[in-house]
C-alpha cells in the first residue's frame, strides 16, 4: 500500500489539464484552494498506515491474498459491508469533510459484478478487462474517481434524442484498438486527487442508445480530458492573508469538478461495457445502491464533528445546562445515529452477487439515502440555532489580528470567562464552515443530490417496496377475498 507521502508525490506526476477561476492550474498539489481536499483524500492512505485503524482501513484482496486499502477492496461478506460504513464514519470524523475516495470504491464494486453478468449473457470479456484494472488498482493502491453523472441536457429526452449528442458521454469513433469518447461528467468529487477515472453510464438505456452504453477506465490526465474546478461558498477565504480562523477547517475540505471528454481514446482492454444497453441500468442501480449506503457512514462522521462543535459552542457560551440546549443536542445525536442505523442495516442485509462480491440491500440503502437528504439539514439548523448569530456576525481574523481591535474583540466576544475568545471564534467558524461555508457543499447539497437526488431514491423505494405482499397481509387481516 502507498503511504500518505507516496500518494501525494504520485499526484505531482499527473499532468492534469485543470482550470480554476479562469486560469490553468499548474500545480494542483500545492494550490491553497485545492490542498485541503487533497489532505482529506490523503487521510484514506494515512489512517491505513496506523495500527489503531487497520481493522477498518485494510482488507485482504480476494484476487491476490495481499493486504489492500479497503477503498480498493471487493466486499467479500456482509461484515465487509459493515466495516465499509464504519470506515467512512471514521474518516468523516477525522476530516469533517468529503474524503472523496468512496465513489471509486462503489463504482468498482458495481462494475465488478455487472461485467460478470454482462459477460454471462452476452459472451463478452468485460469482467476479464475489469479484473486486470482492479488488480493494478489494488497492487499500486491507486485513487479512482467514479464518474457517473452526465450533464444530461433536456431531462425529458433520452441520450440519443438530445439536440446536442454530447450531453451524455458517448462513443464517437470505433477502431480496431478501442473507442474514442466525447461528452462531460458533472459534479466529479475527488477527480483532481485521483489517478484513474472509472466512467459509467448515468441512466438505464434502450435500443438506439448503444453508443451511450459505455463504461471504461482511463488515467485522469489522458489526452482530451479538461477539468473545470467547482466554486464553493467562501472558497477565496483560503487565499486571504489571514486564513486560519475564518476558514473554519484549515486542513481538510472537498472538491468537485466538471470533467470534459473531447475525443478521449479508450483501449479495448479498458472497456467494461460497450453497447449492451440492457446492462447500463444494472451498473447504475448497483453503483447508486452502494453510494447510498456510503452516505450512512461518511455524513454521520461529519455529523459527529458538527454535533461536537455545537456542544462546545454551548459550553463556551455558558448555555450548556439549559434544558432546550441539551434537548436539541440529543435530537442532533438521534438524527445522526438514525442515519448510521440505516447504513449498518442495509449492509447487514447484503447478499452475494454472481461474481462473488456482496451487494447491499437496495431497499434499505435507498431508505438510508432518502433520510440523508433530510436529516443533515435539520442537524445543521439545530447547530445554527445553538451557535447563535455570532457565527455569522463576528469580525474577521484580520480584525482580530489588528492590535488596536484585538482587545475590544477579546473583551466583547468573550463567553465563559475561562475560555479564550479565540477558541470561541474558531468553533463558531467551524460551524459556519460546515453549515454554510466550503464544507457545507459536502454536508448539505451533497447529502441532497450526491448518489442521486431524493426522487431517484423514491423511484427505487417504489420498485423495491413489495407492495403486493403488503396488500395480501391487509387482505388476510381484514378477511377480504
Amino acid at each position, binding site marked *: 500500500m502507498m503511504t500518505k507521502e507516496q500518494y501525494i508525490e504520485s499526484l505531482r506526476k499527473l499532468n492534469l489539464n485543470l482550470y480554476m477561476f479562469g486560469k490553468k492550474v499548474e500545480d494542483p498539489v500545492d494550490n491553497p484552494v485545492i490542498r485541503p481536499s487533497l489532505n482529506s483524500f490523503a487521510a484514506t492512505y494515512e489512517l491505513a498506515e496506523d*495500527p*489503531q*485503524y*487497520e*481493522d*477498518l*482501513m485494510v482488507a485482504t484482496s480476494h484476487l491476490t491474498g495481499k493486504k489492500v486499502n479497503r477503498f480498493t477492496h471487493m466486499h467479500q461478506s456482509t461484515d465487509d459491508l459493515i*466495516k465499509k460504513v*464504519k*470506515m467512512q*464514519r*471514521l474518516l468523516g*470524523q477525522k476530516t469533517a469533510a468529503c474524503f472523496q475516495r468512496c465513489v471509486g470504491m462503489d463504482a468498482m464494486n458495481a462494475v465488478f459484478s455487472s461485467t460478470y453478468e454482462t459477460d454471462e449473457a452476452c459472451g463478452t470479456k468485460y469482467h476479464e478487462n475489469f479484473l486486470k484494472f482492479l488488480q493494478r488498482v489494488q497492487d499500486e493502491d491507486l485513487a479512482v474517481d467514479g464518474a457517473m453523472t452526465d450533464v444530461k441536457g433536456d431531462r425529458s429526452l433520452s441520450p440519443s434524442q438530445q439536440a446536442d449528442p454530447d450531453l451524455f458521454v458517448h462513443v464517437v469513433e470505433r477502431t480496431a484498438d478501442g473507442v474514442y469518447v466525447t461528452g462531460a461528467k458533472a459534479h466529479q468529487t475527488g477527480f483532481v486527487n485521483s489517478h484513474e477515472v472509472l466512467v459509467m453510464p448515468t441512466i438505464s438505456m434502450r435500443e438506439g442508445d448503444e453508443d451511450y452504453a459505455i463504461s471504461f477506465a482511463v488515467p485522469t490526465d489522458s489526452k482530451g480530458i479538461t477539468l473545470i474546478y467547482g466554486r464553493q461558498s467562501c472558497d477565496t477565504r483560503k487565499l486571504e492573508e489571514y486564513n486560519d480562523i475564518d476558514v473554519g477547517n484549515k486542513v481538510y475540505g472537498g472538491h468537485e469538478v466538471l470533467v470534459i471528454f473531447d475525443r478521449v481514446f479508450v483501449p479495448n482492454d479498458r472497456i467494461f461495457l460497450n453497447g449492451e444497453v440492457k446492462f447500463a441500468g444494472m451498473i447504475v442501480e448497483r453503483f447508486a445502491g452502494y453510494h447510498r449506503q456510503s452516505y450512512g457512514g461518511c455524513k454521520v462522521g461529519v455529523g*459527529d464533528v458538527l454535533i461536537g462543535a455545537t456542544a462546545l459552542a454551548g459550553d463556551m457560551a455558558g448555555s450548556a445546562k439549559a434544558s432546550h440546549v441539551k434537548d436539541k443536542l440529543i435530537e442532533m445525536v438521534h438524527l445522526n445515529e438514525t442515519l448510521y442505523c440505516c447504513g449498518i442495516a442495509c449492509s447487514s442485509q447484503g447478499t452475494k452477487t454472481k461474481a462473488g462480491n456482496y451487494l447491499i440491500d437496495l431497499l434499505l440503502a435507498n431508505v438510508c439515502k432518502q433520510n440523508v437528504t433530510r436529516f443533515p439539514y435539520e442537524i445543521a439548523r439545530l447547530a445554527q440555532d445553538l451557535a447563535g448569530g455570532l457565527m455569522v456576525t463576528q469580525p474577521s481574523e484580520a480584525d482580530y489580528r489588528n492590535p488596536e481591535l484585538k482587545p475590544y474583540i477579546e473583551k466583547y466576544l468573550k463567553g465563559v470567562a475561562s475560555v479564550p475568545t479565540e477558541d470561541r471564534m474558531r468553533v463558531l467558524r467551524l460551524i459556519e464552515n460546515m453549515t454554510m461555508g466550503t464544507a457545507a457543499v459536502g454536508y448539505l447539497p451533497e447529502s441532497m443530490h450526491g448518489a442521486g437526488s431524493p426522487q431517484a431514491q423514491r423511484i427505487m423505494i417504489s420498485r423495491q417496496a413489495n407492495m403486493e405482499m403488503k396488500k395480501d397481509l391487509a387482505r388476510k387481516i381484514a378477511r377480504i377475498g
Partner: protein
Amino acid sequence: MLRAAIKFCGGCNPRYDRGARYADFQQRLAPSVTFELPREGVHYDFLLIITGCHACHYEYEEIEAERRFYCTAYEDFEPIIREIEQLIHLREETDK
C-alpha cells in the same frame, strides 16, 4: 519477559483514547512485557485487544496467543493489568 501482540478495533466511534490506553499498558508493564504488532507464524504469550466500545466482537483467531485480554472500556485497564501481572509472576516462578 512476556511477548505480547497488540490489536486495535477499527476505531469508528471509540469511547476513550485507545492509543493513550495502549501507552498506559506499555508503561505499566515495562520491562516485563514487550508488545508488537501481530506477525504471522509467531506464538504470543498473550494478545491484548483494545476496542473503543463494546460492539467489537472479533476474536482475531488468526493471531496465535496463549491468552486473550479485551480492553473494551477505560475502566478495564486495572483488572487486565492485575491478570497480566499474575502471568508475569508465573513466568518468573517457572524461570527460576
